């Protein structure tokens, strides 16, 4: 098994999930509670990675961060090297690609919070921001965990976006799914099978966690 590719993949997935947990909160809050009539435009943009072919998304990200774009030029002036085909560039692409997987469960959890509780908090003199941290977050933990876990799992398995934005650089941007593809191309089915099995096991374990988290009744131990 290619342990370097596995390490890169888990590092990427963990960082993506962590960043999305932070970035996803304000986006999910705004999507849930904003009364702006054109909100659906932003909702559709956030959900776009769900339906867009990864190569298309990857292509646009590549163009957007490439040396000919203002963002790409600003980044290479700042850091000294361009963003595409680096781990940082791959991380940015992963964050955009997994955004709906984090934002949607979190927004769904926020929407489940009884609005009367939020109003009660306001009338007790507690600001909107403090109400968010003291009331809405504790009532949405299952949604937050689901969002983090799903974006982690989704990043583990991404292929098209990685290939477009990250390329295939050992120790930098070669992830497990690229590695499996390489092994199959080289007709090394045994190597591909081992790595594929690992990815299958991890993905299944992660989904088990998500579904167990969202169960109303616990079969294993009673809810206290």
């Amino acid at each position: 098994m290619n342990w370097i590719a596995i390490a890169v993949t888990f590092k990427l997935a963990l960082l993506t999930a962590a960043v999305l947990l932070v970035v996803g909160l304000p986006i999910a809050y705004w999507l849930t509670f904003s009364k702006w009539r054109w909100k659906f435009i932003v909702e559709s943009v956030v959900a776009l990675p769900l339906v867009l072919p990864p190569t298309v998304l990857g292509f646009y990200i590549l163009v957007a961060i490439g040396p000919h774009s203002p963002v790409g030029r600003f980044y290479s002036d700042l850091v000294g090297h361009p963003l595409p085909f680096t781990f940082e560039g791959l991380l940015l692409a992963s964050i955009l690609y997994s955004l709906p997987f984090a934002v949607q469960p979190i927004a769904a959890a926020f929407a489940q919070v009884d609005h009367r509780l939020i109003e009660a908090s306001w009338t007790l003199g507690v600001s909107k921001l403090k109400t968010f941290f003291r009331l809405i977050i504790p009532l949405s933990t299952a949604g937050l965990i689901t969002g983090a876990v799903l974006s982690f799992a989704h990043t583990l398995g991404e292929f098209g976006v990685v290939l477009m934005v990250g390329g295939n650089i050992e120790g930098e941007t070669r992830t497990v799914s690229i590695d499996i593809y390489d092994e199959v191309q080289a007709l090394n089915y045994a190597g591909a099978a081992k790595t594929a099995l690992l990815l299958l096991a991890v993905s299944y374990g992660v989904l088990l966690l998500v579904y167990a988290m969202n169960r109303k009744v616990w079969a294993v131990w009673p809810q206290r």
Partner: protein
Amino acid sequence: MAAALTVDCRKTFPGRFTTAAQLVLPLDHPRVLILFGPSGSGKTTLLRCLAGLEWPDEGRIQFGSTTWIDVAANIRLSPQARRIGYMPQDYALFPTHTVTGNIEYGLSDLPTAVRQERVRELLALLQLQGLEQAKPAQLSGGQQQRVALARAIARRPQLLLLDEPLSALDAPTRVKLCGQLRVLLTQLAIPAIVVTHDWAEALTLGDTIAVMNAGQVLQVGSPQEVFSRPANAEVAQIVGIETVVQGLVVANDNGLATVSVNGTMLKGLGADVSGSAVYVCIRADDVLLEQAGSGITSARNYLFGLVTEILPQGVLVTVTVDCGFLLRAMITRGAREDLGLERGSTVVAAIKAGAVHLVSRSA
């Protein structure tokens, strides 16, 4: 001008009637104002405008010298800045917090020692000791109501807003807690606005009643005034009780209470009555009129009186009888002719004790 809460605002929800209210609640002698009316009459909307949870479309709300909202001047004070105690209909207790956590939720800016002392005070005042660590789901309806009240008054609000404070409880608990709530409101001496659709609650809790229907405030006055002298037919229909007079319980034997109203003795059901001051409530439908000197029936109350007013209302006639207090009876036109009733006629009003409702007014 003495400090007052002045409300003059309008709010329309798409597809519904406009709620428009003009009210003045004096704040120097803390009083309880009841917003009374059938469901959907705009009571809760008005209360939510006062809490800052709805923005009126036009008008203003002034609390003493502070403007809470003035649509024309674009002043909107947030609910956080109004220093109110708001208790929604289903209490909205925070399920993730314990009883203590709920009560001290709005006190986070106080030093720990002061906060703990305040929570102890409130637990004692509302008889919640022993439940400090319980979660709302583990409490009975009455306990939840007391926690919600404790939380609402924890910050020493300048105005209490209670939305149907008793409607989530079963009937026997409701009667018991209604009396306790009256005592508590008097003790706290905080001006309060209470929404209810139950006339017994309105009479027990209120110093002033504002009758609402279809978004309009129809009449504002003392409970006795509003119930006994409704401003118009609409108010009369909403309050539904034509005779409301103050009385004193002089005896209470096995739930049958004897009440003195201006010297006239009445018997009524007094199983739920505590204290001696009561409102005596009688529906005009429940009053029988007879010619003086006729037979004996099962009714416990025979009141001799003089007819002072006869008002035809469709096929019915409302007859007002002065029998120490003004009693209204509703009879058919035919019955009136048979009895030969005119102003000045002497009649006997018969009322079964079960039709004499007594509402406690202790404290």
